[in-house]
């Protein structure tokens, strides 16, 4: 009975929509709501074979790859250094993590300003090297701006997790390692890095999910709601086709594909957590 509030909310706002998405992915719906025709897997076939979808999927994959690895790499480097310095560690920590609280679209807005063609300092900076950036016009430049903004937004989360992971490594292990091995670089790769691996795997999943879903705000602001020829992510395409294109079946089919993807990711994540609990 105590579960009732949560169950009601989950059913109404979660199970019902999910079921509806699965259902309408098999139908070709009239945009004005005058009924639907059962079309089986046609929506999926149409979606997967369309060149547009392929292009968006490729961009999402590349985007996810860069966002994940850059933000993990930068965060790891900073966390290792922040863990090591004797003085000012906590101020660095604060200064590096507060960006967590900045909303993705706000990050996108600041990104738009910094990459603006007339006034953006980053554009001016790269112009010194002869790179004329055209955000919103040039495919590559827009992807670059999106990636930088998304990485900027994600570094703090990774930093916090890596730092708390590093601080969880016991002092005795570190001392033993520093007696056995003088090179701090080698010590990092052979002792610290493996001990951080569970955190790293976990963050990998988190980051992939982030690049897929939470970057919606950044993408939406940077393309200025004019997708045209610009790079967009798969989630953004679900939104576009559903709300702008009125292609309910196709949008739902894409939702279902994403649901399956997230499902796989989550299963992997639970597996990893179970393993981690097992060993500690």
């Amino acid at each position, binding site marked *: 009975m105590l*579960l009732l509030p949560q*169950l009601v909310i989950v059913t109404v706002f979660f199970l019902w929509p999910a079921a509806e998405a699965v259902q309408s992915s098999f139908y070709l719906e009239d945009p004005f709501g005058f009924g639907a025709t059962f079309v089986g897997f046609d929506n999926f076939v149409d979606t997967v074979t369309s060149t547009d979808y392929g292009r968006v999927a490729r961009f999402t994959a590349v985007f996810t790859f860069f966002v994940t690895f850059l933000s993990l790499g930068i965060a790891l480097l900073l966390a290792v250094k922040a863990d090591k310095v004797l003085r000012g560690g906590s101020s660095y920590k604060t200064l590096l993590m507060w960006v*967590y609280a900045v909303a993705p679209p*706000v990050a996108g807005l*600041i990104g738009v300003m910094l990459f603006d063609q007339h006034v953006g300092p980053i554009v001016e900076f790269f112009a010194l090297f002869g790179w004329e950036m055209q955000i919103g016009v040039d495919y590559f430049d827009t992807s670059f701006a999106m990636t930088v903004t998304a990485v900027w937004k994600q570094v703090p989360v990774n930093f916090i997790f890596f730092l708390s992971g590093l601080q969880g490594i016991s002092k005795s292990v570190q001392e033993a390692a520093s007696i056995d091995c003088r090179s701090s670089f080698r010590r990092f790769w052979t002792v610290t890095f493996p001990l951080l691996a569970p955190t790293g795997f976990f963050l990998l999943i988190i980051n992939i999910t982030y690049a897929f879903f939470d970057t919606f705000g950044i993408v*939406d602001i940077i393309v200025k709601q004019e997708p045209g020829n610009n790079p967009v992510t798969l989630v953004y395409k679900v939104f576009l086709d559903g709300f702008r294109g009125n292609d309910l079946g196709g949008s739902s089919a894409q939702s279902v594909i994403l649901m399956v993807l997230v499902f796989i990711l989550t299963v992997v994540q639970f597996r990893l957590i179970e393993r981690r609990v097992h060993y500690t």
Partner: protein
Amino acid sequence: MRKVQILDHVILLLGVFFMVTPVALAFMTSTHDAITIYKEGIQFLPGDKFLENYETVLFRAGGFTKEVDGFVMLMNSMILGFGFAIGKIIISMIAAYAIVYFRFPMATFCFWIIFATLLLPLEVRILPSYEIVQSLGLVNTYTGLIVPLIASATGTFFFRQFFMSVPDELLEAARIDGAGPWKFFKDILVPLSQTMIAAIFIIMFVYGWNQYLWPTLITTEESLFTLVRGIKQIMQVWVGAQIPALNEAMALAILAIVPPVLIVVIFQSWFVKGLVESDK
């Protein structure tokens, strides 16, 4: 040794520079007038239009209907942030209490239904969710804005883990002393979980405050706009304008950034705890 330390600090300072500069520039921009920025590019030093710009943004109605000003949006953001965080904590605590301490038929089934929601972010099931909220007549209401966001089970999962770590002896002692289930919950579990509640409150507040896609769909009436939602409006004005009002846009962005950042920085230790524990 000394040299290594200096290098560490240099790397950390670079990291801080990377994280802080964009927002600092946004703030500098918000203190100039639009024409200066348009003529001379982004300013790196504070200007003299600070009060003027913020006053305009906060109290002069803008948008299409000229009904909404920054102050209203600020209030709406507060309502969304607090409503979401408080609602989520209450509902998920009650549900977790039921799952951990009561044996009842279908318990495992309910458990799985709730945890299935962890699998699918809102973005994936956005279109059907919107249709359902619409058919319930909740578009442009605070209920429609807040309640569907509560559907995911992160909070329940978090409290479940915590309740399971509470020793059974406490429950037995309470029972011997004649405390009923409600008294046990109110006088023992709630006080015990105080820091947990604080930690999760911060995470949820920031999460609610930063919501973008859902408010964009649900609120079409400007009097219900949140600050983050307002960003989209800024972009639309921006695209059409001759001289974009970058200064006011950035003033609004800063307004959207400051409250969650303050909360994260002030309650830093709770925040880190909440983040690291809740995502496990």
